């Protein structure tokens, strides 16, 4: 059945290339070590301007096709000027796009044609934490909720399995659910 339908299924994911990369990296695991980078310049107040340009991977320096820039700020209810999303909203963006990319890739691999995938995300936070008002309240999200609406040539169970597998292989899902050593230094 897989061979029969695989020709028709196209989610825009080059599964063959991904599988090929996996084989190649098995021979040269050092090439699998990536370093992602971001630069952030303070603009004014809570407004900052971030740039994504180069990264390291496959054993050498790499560059995005385009230099991406992002503004981050806080909304007016925080007495800020709202020049961009808040940093925590960027975290939601990261999680959503990571899980969504995973769903597309896994669907391709499983010969499931996707027609639409829509994720809606919510992160709840008690700002008494970041305001230092209550030491029992954490700074970050108390919980994050992701809801997928997926239209695909698949049963509900298959779609649920897609979503489950995408979490299992998601970098950002891992980052949010497991601790990470973070070192902050001053140059």
């Amino acid at each position, binding site marked *: 059945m897989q061979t029969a339908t695989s020709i028709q299924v196209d989610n825009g994911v080059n599964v063959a290339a991904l599988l090929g990369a996996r084989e190649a990296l098995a021979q040269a695991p050092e090439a699998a070590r990536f370093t992602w980078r971001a630069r952030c310049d303070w603009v004014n107040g809570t407004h900052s301007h971030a740039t994504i340009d180069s990264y390291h991977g496959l054993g050498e320096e790499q560059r995005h096709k385009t230099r991406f820039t992002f503004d981050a700020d806080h909304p007016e209810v925080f007495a800020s000027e709202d020049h961009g999303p808040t940093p925590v909203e960027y975290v939601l963006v990261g999680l959503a796009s990571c899980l969504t990319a995973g769903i597309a890739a896994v669907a391709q691999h499983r010969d499931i044609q996707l027609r639409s995938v829509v994720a809606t995300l919510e992160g709840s936070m008690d700002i008494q934490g970041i305001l*230092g008002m209550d*030491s*029992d309240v954490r700074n970050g999200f108390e919980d994050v909720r992701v809801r997928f609406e997926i239209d695909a040539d698949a049963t509900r169970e298959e779609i649920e399995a897609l979503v489950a597998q995408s979490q299992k292989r998601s970098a950002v899902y891992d980052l949010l*659910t*497991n*601790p*990470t*050593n*973070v*070192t*902050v230094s001053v140059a």
Partner: protein
Amino acid sequence: MNGDLPRRRFSPSRVLPYRVTTVVVIGAGQAGLAMSHQLDRRGIDHVVLERGEVANAWRHERWDSLRLLTPNWQCRLPGFRYAGPDPDGFMTMPEVVDFLHGYARKLSAPIHTATRVMSVRPAPGGYRVVTDAGDWQCRAVVIASGACNLPVVPALASSLPASLHSLTTRDYRHPCQLANGGVLVVGASATGVQLADEIQRSGRPVTLAVGEHVRMPRRYRGRDIQWWMEASGLLDQRFDEIDDIERARRLPSPQLMGSETPATLDLNTLETRGVQRVGRLVGLRDHTLQFSGSLAAHCAAADLKLGRLLETFDIWARHRGMDNDLAPPERFPTTRLPASPRLSLDLNRGEIRTVLWATGFRPDYRWLHVPVLDRKGRLKHHGGVVEAPGLYALGLPFMRRRKSSFIHGVDDDARELSDHLLGYLAGYPSDSSEGGKGGNRLAQCGLPRRNRMDAHPRVVLTEGD
């Protein structure tokens, strides 16, 4: 015992026998005893009620090797001080118990031991104190029952596998009571680092979960760190001159240890002894404990704060012209960290057999039936003057001063609060808006005349004894 109890014959439906006194002091630790001394000096009739015996927590709720974090010369209470041969030593728990017993013997007020307070509730003319050995009617209550009654343990403790032995530092006595094998000590305050050290030395490999902590050397420039804290005036800092008193009250106890010969015990010492340091315990997922990736941040913050503290001391010593009497200023190496601190620990692998919670304590106010607790169950008070007329607290962390929870720190607080209490009994207005009603109550409830005679205008809180 019941023979001399007054009985309310006019109220046959409630023939509760009760005794009458002006002030009930709850707890016969250093705070309750110091308060008794001060009340005595002011001629205020009172009793001290103690659930166990004098110095009960020191006697029954501490581990065997513990010594005071403060040197003997600093052990003093109103009208009493250490007079032994070793002023620079650190008392063991039996020595602390002896010290407080010696003090209690000098007091004239009755100390009712083996008397557990079951309830304190407002009653006409003051408070009704219900105990398992009879009731008391009084005008004022001093809560001196301590800040360390109930261990505070994170919620995830209840989800640990049953095969793991989990205990708090209140139940810990010595390493032999733990199974052989690894021990996770959670918390790196004075208690956490001392027990991590002792358990590691017993041959049980220790992993220490470290969050926010306060680093301090035992000695600095040839003097005990407590000498610096006291002489420079830091311990006398008042609660109303601190920017964020709530935060100051929550500060973990500094990484200090009392020992036969003075020694510093910090995370670097523990590293040398082989203790594995990990970040704050933040989660339990399936069978895996998760540690925060913030160990570096917490250690860097503690190093910075230590540097600032020593800088403060150096400036103070220079201004006082003491540099020639002291060893030269020194700075300590920064906290050494594992290259990549461990973030998880799979409990199924048997690496640890015991979890020891050194995660702090909170007071127990379950018996306090007066609406003076905030939404988190903490006592609402202003420097020990509780938000209910005639109700006082003593011995809580940074209650009136940074030293408030130290043995020697209770002296000034007890003096000031007993003055306040005297003013309250005399019916003079006080910090508490309802304080003025006290005078009327005095007339209404017919309490011993002596107190009315002795009462005089409220003394200024900072006046010396």
